[in-house]
């Protein structure tokens, strides 16, 4: 044991270890959530879902899909802008992976507890916007272009409610570090959602919009634009986008859980047990939020672009601003 502790106290070894862990977690989480989506959506639609891959439960379906995507021909349209086309999925995935850095899985179980943790997370998640725009433009396809333009408007519009919704929790906690926010909820004895209910709702809606999931999937809009900005992507590059979507679902839910639902802490669990129970509790809460996202996707139709924008600008941003004002006032007074 001492040998291992000494080994990992070396900065480069621990860095390599963390990188390896992240590199492993992204595909695993992507596959697990993708499989959950397939099965849950099937049950909601009175179907069975994946059944044959890997025995009766079909758990190997996503592995099979991953292998399938890997071995596909790498198609790039002739008139596409090649460097931009190739770079776009990478940017989207980089934005997602970077979010993993600040997710607290347990007390001390965080890749890097930055003192501006949540600020960093919000900044880095904007990289996906650029990636989406690049994908839409470089595909040399009118449908992709329309999807990309819609994405530009939508993602930029919903960045603001995302950021503003977070501020209320930060005010209550007094710190921007993710561990600090969870600690503040432990000290307060209740998760912040009790006071920040409005902020939580706004954050979840804005997170759904950032993921371009139904009801906000105008940029993809399968029945109109074939696949929007993703139309020309196939094989390995599409896998990047696919994994990025599910991994971002996980990280957005994890951030929401950390900020609003108490992170890896449950009232009643002693702090000493949190080292081991923390990740499990966090996964449980994240799964609840991911289930809600899947549930909403398969129940609702999609908003039209102008309805999307008016929802963001006329409803969510004012709500979030009012939330901040009220929270700040109460924090000062109480």
């Amino acid at each position, binding site marked *: 044991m001492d040998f291992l502790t000494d080994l990992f106290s070396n900065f480069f070894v621990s860095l390599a270890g963390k990188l390896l862990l992240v590199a492993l977690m992204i595909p695993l989480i992507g596959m697990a959530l993708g499989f959950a989506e397939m099965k*849950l959506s099937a049950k*909601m639609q*009175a179907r*069975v879902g994946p059944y044959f891959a890997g025995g009766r439960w079909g758990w190997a379906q996503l592995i099979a899909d991953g292998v399938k995507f890997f071995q596909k021909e790498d198609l790039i349209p002739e008139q596409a802008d090649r460097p931009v086309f190739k770079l776009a999925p990478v940017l989207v995935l980089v934005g997602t992976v970077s979010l993993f850095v600040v997710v607290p899985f347990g007390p001390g179980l965080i890749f890097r507890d930055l003192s501006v943790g949540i600020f960093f997370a919000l900044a880095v998640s904007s990289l996906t916007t650029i990636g989406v725009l690049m994908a839409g433009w470089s595909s040399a396809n009118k449908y992709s272009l329309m999807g990309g333009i819609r994405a530009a408007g939508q993602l930029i519009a919903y960045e603001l409610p995302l950021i503003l919704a977070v501020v209320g929790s930060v005010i209550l906690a007094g710190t921007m570090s993710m561990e600090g926010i969870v600690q503040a909820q432990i000290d307060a004895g209740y998760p912040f959602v009790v006071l920040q209910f409005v902020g939580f709702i706004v954050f979840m809606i804005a997170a759904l919009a950032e993921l371009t999931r139904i009801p906000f999937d105008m940029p993809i809009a399968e029945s109109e634009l074939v696949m929007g900005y993703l139309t020309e992507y196939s094989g390995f590059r599409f896998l990047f986008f696919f994994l990025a979507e599910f991994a971002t679902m996980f990280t957005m839910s994890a951030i929401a859980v950390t900020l609003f639902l108490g992170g890896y802490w449950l009232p009643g669990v002693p702090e000493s047990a949190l080292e081991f129970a923390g990740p499990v509790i966090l996964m449980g809460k994240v799964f609840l939020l991911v289930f809600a996202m899947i*549930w*909403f996707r398969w129940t609702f139709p999609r908003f039209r672009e102008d309805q999307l924008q008016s929802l963001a600008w006329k409803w969510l941003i004012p709500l979030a601003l009012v939330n901040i004002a009220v929270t700040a006032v109460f924090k000062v007074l109480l």
Partner: protein
Amino acid sequence: MAEATQARKVPGSGMVAGLWVTLSTMFKTIFRPGSHLATVNYPKVKETPVPRARGVIALDQEACTVCMLCARSCPDWCIYIEGHKEEQPPATPGGRIKVRATLDRFDIDYALCMYCGICVEVCPFDALFWSPEYEYSEVRMGEMLHDMDRLQDWLTTVPENPGLEK
């Protein structure tokens, strides 16, 4: 005159009702799958078609008299018939020699067949039957031409008459 429903009174309650439908379907599918599933797990589970289902046409070579009515009435002209006349010895010595038409070739091209059933209907000698068998897809289109013997084999799959409504 039926009137359209108005939007519900409480904003958001329509979405909640929709969420409830999806959630209840999910629980029903997980815990009581038999009643509610929209799909069956083909090929592990196969649905049996009704007896009248138009799956494949079976031929009774003995009954066929090469009258060509089926080939003529097919809208796609997908039945190919060739026959010749055979002389048969008289039943009693000194009687008339009977001439009987015999099949040389009776092919139905299922790549062209529209499954309309006109051939089965017009046959005056009850030589063609419908069978609900449907699993005879092939890799090569040439194999969709079923010849005389294959059509005779399908005869074993023709179901009995289950009866009519009173």
